[in-house]
């Protein structure tokens, strides 16, 4: 095994348009795409022309970001000497209301990433996108890819139809634990509910910032509902979630748990301990002060050096130049964040190397 340099836990190959998925769709849905004029499933979580959705110097002449494997190799894999990178496809299959259509589109998306990316670049791994519109079909989709070691994770959005701790989703966690697939929760919404509990915000800025509230709700839902009591081997990766909200949130969750823990009696230890055992976070965007001392204090408050996973979030514009590993992250943690923690989090990735 060659020396590992970095495992990028969040990159985003972009589907150019629905035409790209049609080779992977059954005829009936192919027909529906054409007859209904479905051109794209891009969502307002990542509007294609928004600065966040694609760093300017990584966009093709057409303006497209993340659509070219050659560009990904040049700008990311080769440029940062990345050993492996995990593809998280963000295409609005989660927004589709018709469950049959959602399953067809999701299946096509996973086949597309297999053929167009994984088969063409050995450094790539991917997450299995699952249609939560139908839990049964989501489990089937996991089983369909479980034998392919290049799939190392299951991908869902931070804001969906119901909190992820709910028991209706547990068959997915059962399959995840069985196949050693962490649940990756990525920023984004299926827009079933307003992005904030107060109602719809007006601006994209509010949309993106409110994602951390969605992550917080998912963390407390999964912990309080007892997901990790039922599935003690399950890991969850919060992707593009930001990090600075974590310590204060865990303190609050633990404080109030002490007073009302009898309503969740299966939670027999502080929620922060459960979080540290089961949750991981990707590093971009690292929403901490530039001051290295302040950033180090933030990381100290996580009270574990095993939680952070290196990510570039390519081609999203989270940093300039080569600040892919934020310079305010303590140097002593870099190796852990870039290699050791990802290997420990993604056992299928680790196994495929040996």
């Amino acid at each position, binding site marked *: 095994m060659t020396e590992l340099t970095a495992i990028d836990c969040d990159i985003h190959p972009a589907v150019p348009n629905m035409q790209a998925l049609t080779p992977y769709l059954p005829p009936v849905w192919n027909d529906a795409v054409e007859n209904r004029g479905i051109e794209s499933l891009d969502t307002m979580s990542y509007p294609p022309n928004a600065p966040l959705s694609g760093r300017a110097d990584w966009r093709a002449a057409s303006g497209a970001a993340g659509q070219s494997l050659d560009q990904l190799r040049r700008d990311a894999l080769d440029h940062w000497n990345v050993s492996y990178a995990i593809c998280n496809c963000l295409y609005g299959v989660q927004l589709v209301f018709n469950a049959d259509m959602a399953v067809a589109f999701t299946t096509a998306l996973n086949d597309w990433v297999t053929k167009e990316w994984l088969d063409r670049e050995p450094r790539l791994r991917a997450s299995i996108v699952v249609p939560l519109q139908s839990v049964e079909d989501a489990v089937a989709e996991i089983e369909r890819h479980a034998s392919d070691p290049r799939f190392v994770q299951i991908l869902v959005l931070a804001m969906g139809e119901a909190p992820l701790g709910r028991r209706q989703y547990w068959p997915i966690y059962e399959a995840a634990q069985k196949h050693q697939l962490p649940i990756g929760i990525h920023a984004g919404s299926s827009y079933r509910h307003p992005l904030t509990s107060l109602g719809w915000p007006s601006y994209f800025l509010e949309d993106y910032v409110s994602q951390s509230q969605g992550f917080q709700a998912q963390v407390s839902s999964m912990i309080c509902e*007892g997901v990790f009591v039922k599935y003690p081997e399950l890991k969850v990766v919060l992707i593009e979630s930001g990090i600075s909200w974590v310590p204060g949130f865990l303190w609050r969750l633990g404080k109030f748990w002490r007073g009302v823990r*009898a309503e969740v009696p299966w939670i027999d230890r502080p929620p922060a301990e459960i979080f540290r055992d089961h949750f991981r976070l990707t590093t971009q965007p690292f929403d901490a002060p530039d001051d290295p001392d302040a950033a180090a204090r933030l990381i100290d408050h996580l009270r574990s050096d095993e939680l952070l996973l290196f990510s570039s979030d390519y081609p999203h514009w989270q940093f300039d130049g080569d600040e892919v590993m934020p310079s305010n992250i303590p140097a002593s943690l870099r190796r852990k964040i870039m290699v050791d923690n990802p290997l420990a989090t993604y056992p299928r990735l680790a196994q495929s190397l040996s």
Partner: protein
Amino acid sequence: MAKHVIAAVADFPPETRKLIDVNGRKIVVFNVKGEYFALFNRCPHEGGSLFHGKLTGLVESDDPGTYKYSREGEIIRCPWHSWEFDVRTGKSWCDPNRVKVRNYNVKVEPGATLVEGPYVAETFPVTVENDYVVIDV
């Protein structure tokens, strides 16, 4: 440590509690189904009066969605933030080794013993015929 007579058993029936003052120390004494338990009347968290808390059972679970309810009346919840304490040990549920409330030995003794022994309380009238609740402080 000295023994202090709190009350005649007849005056301290099951499912009642008393707040007593022993040399300036506030202590809550519970009668739970005929057993007496005494705790320092100050929650170690923020100082709430446990005398004003609610006695409940112990809720446990081995599996999400299942509930085991036992030891009814043996858990005192602080009225301020609902932290739970075991009346038998004073230990908190959430952090039993670090957060606990001082507990005291309390038992029933016959008046005859108290009249004879060196333990007679200074102010409480004790008669040979009755049983009394006595606390070690």
